[in-house]
């Protein structure tokens, strides 16, 4: 059953069990089935992932001069695993395709048909997104573990018991990332092409979150960086995997829930404003 199906909120209206989450579970499941057929295509994406990781293995191999050296508090293995984990999240979620879909729907006017269906459009998109990463993420996780153990070496002090907590943080991170990207896509109600803003957001995340852990930046910048979505979207979850501690986990979870709430409120606000504009001006 789908993710939402299990936890579906049940209400009793005149004796009929009314479950508003059910439809999203069905959407999720159909995308899941669809994507299962494309598993081979997804696997082709492994190539890009491998190239990226390969470059970083070589790069950090050059930067660390002596074995056991620490850079910004990370060993070489931790540093490479950090990149592998953040990249796994982005390759494994493909938020870009979902965001692109939203932008296209708005630009082509297709949204008028999707809007009039009895579901909330943004939740519909998020269900589809969840269906996509449910297939992709495990595939990339497996790939990362294989590359990591073969080419990098196992993580020091890795605790298998902490995996469920890490998984929760990763999933929350992916969802927050998608919510922010959707917000940017929703700008398409006002501007013709929102993709340049997506590039900037992506690059911000890439440069200051994916490639390096926050500790590598100048001390003065670090508190500032921890306030940005980067902390909840990639630094947090990846740091947790590389160097787990229960206190950090709670701290990250709290920040993620806060961010998710804010992001969702923002998303529905922008969406509502955009739709109103659509009604006024027509498609």
């Amino acid at each position, binding site marked *: 059953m789908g993710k939402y199906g299990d936890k579906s909120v049940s209400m009793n209206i005149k004796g009929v069990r009314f479950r508003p989450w059910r439809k999203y579970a069905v959407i999720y499941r159909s995308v899941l089935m669809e994507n299962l057929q494309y598993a081979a295509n997804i696997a082709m*994406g492994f190539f*890009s992932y491998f*190239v990226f990781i*390969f470059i970083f293995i070589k790069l950090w191999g*050059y*930067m660390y001069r002596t074995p056991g050296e620490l850079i910004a508090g990370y060993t070489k293995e931790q540093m490479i695993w950090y990149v592998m984990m953040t990249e796994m999240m982005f390759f494994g979620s493909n938020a870009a395709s979902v965001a692109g879909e939203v932008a296209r729907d708005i630009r082509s006017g297709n949204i008028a048909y999707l809007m009039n269906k009895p579901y909330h459009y943004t939740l519909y998109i998020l269900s589809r997104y969840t269906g996509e990463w449910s297939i992709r993420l495990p595939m990339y996780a497996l790939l990362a573990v294989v590359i990591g153990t073969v080419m990098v070496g196992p993580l020091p002090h890795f605790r298998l018991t902490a995996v469920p907590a890490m998984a929760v943080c990763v999933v929350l991170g992916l969802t927050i990332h998608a919510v922010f990207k959707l917000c940017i896509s929703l700008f398409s109600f006002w501007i013709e092409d929102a993709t*340049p803003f997506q590039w*900037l957001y992506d*690059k911000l995340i890439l440069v200051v979150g994916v490639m390096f852990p926050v500790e590598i930046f100048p001390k003065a910048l670090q508190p500032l960086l921890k306030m940005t979505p980067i902390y909840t979207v990639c630094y947090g979850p990846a740091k947790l995997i590389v160097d787990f501690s229960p206190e950090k986990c709670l701290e990250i979870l709290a920040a993620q829930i806060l961010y998710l709430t804010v992001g969702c409120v923002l998303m529905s606000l922008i969406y509502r404003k955009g739709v109103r504009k659509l009604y006024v001006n027509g498609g």
Partner: protein
Amino acid sequence: MLTAAKNQLRVCLLSMKYNMMREMVNKVTFLTNVCFMVLNNASILVQWIILFRLREDVGGYTFREILFLWGLTAASFGLSHILFARAFSLSDLIIRGKLDSYLVQPKNVLVSVLTSSTDISAIGDFLYGVALVCACRPGVGGFFLFLLFTVTGTAIFTAFALLLGSLSFWFVRMDILQGQMVMGAVSFATYPDGIFEGISRFLLYFIVPVGMAVWYPVHVIVSFHAGMFFAVLGYACALSVTAVAVFYRGLKRYASGNLMEARM
């Protein structure tokens, strides 16, 4: 022969002009696309500033050499996507059987196809590359070398994409792989060759054409080396000829209808 070439050129220029006009229908979108691409590229400098804080050289490159590397990659990648954007989505064209409309025109099929679209954000890449190199004050000679190597780099990137795309005449799944291989090559091209050694270094020089497109040229710009210089020119020509030959071999297969499975 000469008039045929002249006529072909006239069609190409018109085609490019019309492509540009299409992209510039909305001026605001056009400008934001170009400007944001520049910003987008510039943000990567953060990575290098961080890395150079840790060590004085990365893979034997100084910061200035990294800027050359980036400038050349961005300019070559940009120019190839401005002029020959279709080479990079050739697979799609072949698999969907969209070559038909080029085949009924009395013009060179490959040239018509390659120049049939453009990518405006690539203008941002190109401008960024040129600006970056100018900022390093390469001197007149260095700048001309940079321009020349932008041309060879453009030829190499385009030929590489054309070669991979042409494989779609035989293998259906190439559409995904084409994009990935090209982007993979570009990723390698933005890192110094000094960090790779052994087999990976060999592969990057001879199979994935990064060494000849970017690394050798950077070495030549920094300090001239005749052997490397001619190796780059030779490699660019050889790869282009190979790519064109493979495309035409594939086109014969297309005309014999053996791709019907994909087209039906």
